[in-house]
């Protein structure tokens, strides 16, 4: 099997490498990919949509239908992880560990034992080895607000600089995942619950599709944001710019929520009690 695989891979690779001689040279300005539709995007995007970042303009306006279903794909991935992994019935763990905070002693409580209830003195910890995490906790607590601020900047400034809904959403999700890693999964879920994650991911897709449907109601094509001009009280070019922002916010919400949701399900294998 190993030799057969190697033979197939070498055969495939050599056929592909042989045919690269038909490909355009690297960086050739007249390559087929850069000659047909892309000059139109580059020369007309600013006049059509008032968005200097052409990537954002193409992503959310010219190819908005494609991006809407990419967002739906991400939403479906979140749902698929949920249905594959989530264990909803409560499983009593055989052993729970508590740390006595003033002394640092770890209490091991077998099944059926009485659990301490003073949460200011006793803190539940994961059954895997948990080191003291003062430095990690403090660093993350200071860094996470700035990560989230930067994520909001990336989403809102996607018109003028590299960025947009996908990137900003991933950074926002990463900040919550960093919080879950630096403390533990239970604390993260108590701050940002699974229900909120599911709700926000659906809301993101709804904002995107809703913006498209609103254009339809106002008498234009689906996702033709220039129809929003009377609603937003701007001219039709700026309406397309604002429409892109609305859609990017929806994408950012959906991506953030799905990243967090997938992380919760994967790291605890669907039990949502102990994880990374």
């Amino acid at each position, binding site marked *: 099997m*190993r030799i057969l695989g190697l033979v197939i891979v070498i055969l495939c690779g050599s056929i592909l490498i042989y045919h690269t001689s038909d*490909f355009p040279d690297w960086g050739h300005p007249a390559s087929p*990919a850069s000659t047909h539709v892309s000059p139109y995007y580059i020369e007309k995007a600013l006049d059509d949509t008032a968005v200097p*970042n052409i990537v954002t303009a193409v992503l959310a306006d010219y190819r908005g239908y494609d991006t809407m279903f*990419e967002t739906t794909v*991400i939403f479906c991935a979140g749902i*698929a992880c949920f249905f*594959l992994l989530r264990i909803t019935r409560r499983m009593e763990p055989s052993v729970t560990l508590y740390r006595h905070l003033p002394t640092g002693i770890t209490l091991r409580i077998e099944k059926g034992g009485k659990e301490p209830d003073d949460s200011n003195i006793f803190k539940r910890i994961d059954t895997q080895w948990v080191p003291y995490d003062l430095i990690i906790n403090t660093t993350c607590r200071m860094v996470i607000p700035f990560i989230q601020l930067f994520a909001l900047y990336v989403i809102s400034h996607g018109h003028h*600089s590299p960025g947009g809904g996908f990137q900003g959403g991933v950074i926002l999700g990463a900040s919550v995942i960093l919080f879950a890693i630096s403390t533990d999964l239970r604390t993260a879920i108590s701050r940002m619950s699974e229900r909120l994650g599911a709700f926000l991911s659906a809301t993101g897709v709804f904002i995107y599709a809703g913006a498209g449907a609103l254009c339809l109601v106002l008498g234009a094509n689906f996702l033709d944001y220039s129809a929003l001009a009377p609603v937003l009280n701007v001219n039709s070019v700026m309406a397309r710019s604002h429409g892109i922002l609305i859609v990017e916010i929806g994408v950012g919400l959906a991506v953030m929520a799905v990243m967090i949701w997938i992380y919760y399900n994967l790291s605890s294998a669907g039990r949502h009690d102990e994880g990374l």
Partner: protein
Amino acid sequence: MNEILTTIISKYNYWGFILLMMIGLYAMMVKKNLVKKIIGMNIFQTGIILFYVSIGVKKGATIPIISHGHGKEKHVIHAAEYINPLPHVLMLTAIVVSVATLGVALALAIKVYREYDTLEEDEINKKIRDQAK
């Protein structure tokens, strides 16, 4: 000699991506461990993403964000001054979708591990055959 050198310089990026794709394909076909197969799939996706991004390159052009995009005065925009934005758009969404597929693949791997207590392909096959008997 000079001709070979120009061929190498103008085509070596494609060879790199093909190498990455073939590494991924090999890992998906030959490796027995399911997590290694998933990593192979990710390497394959990375090869394709890099391939698309390198298609968009134009010599002497800058990133596809129009300078002097603000203000009232009009500047003439030449398509040759900016690299092709279309592959960047496609790959921007493909990266996030590849993360999502990675999540689903890992979820399936966890499900398999719960069922069979192993991620090795031949051991899973053996257990399935034993169950059928």
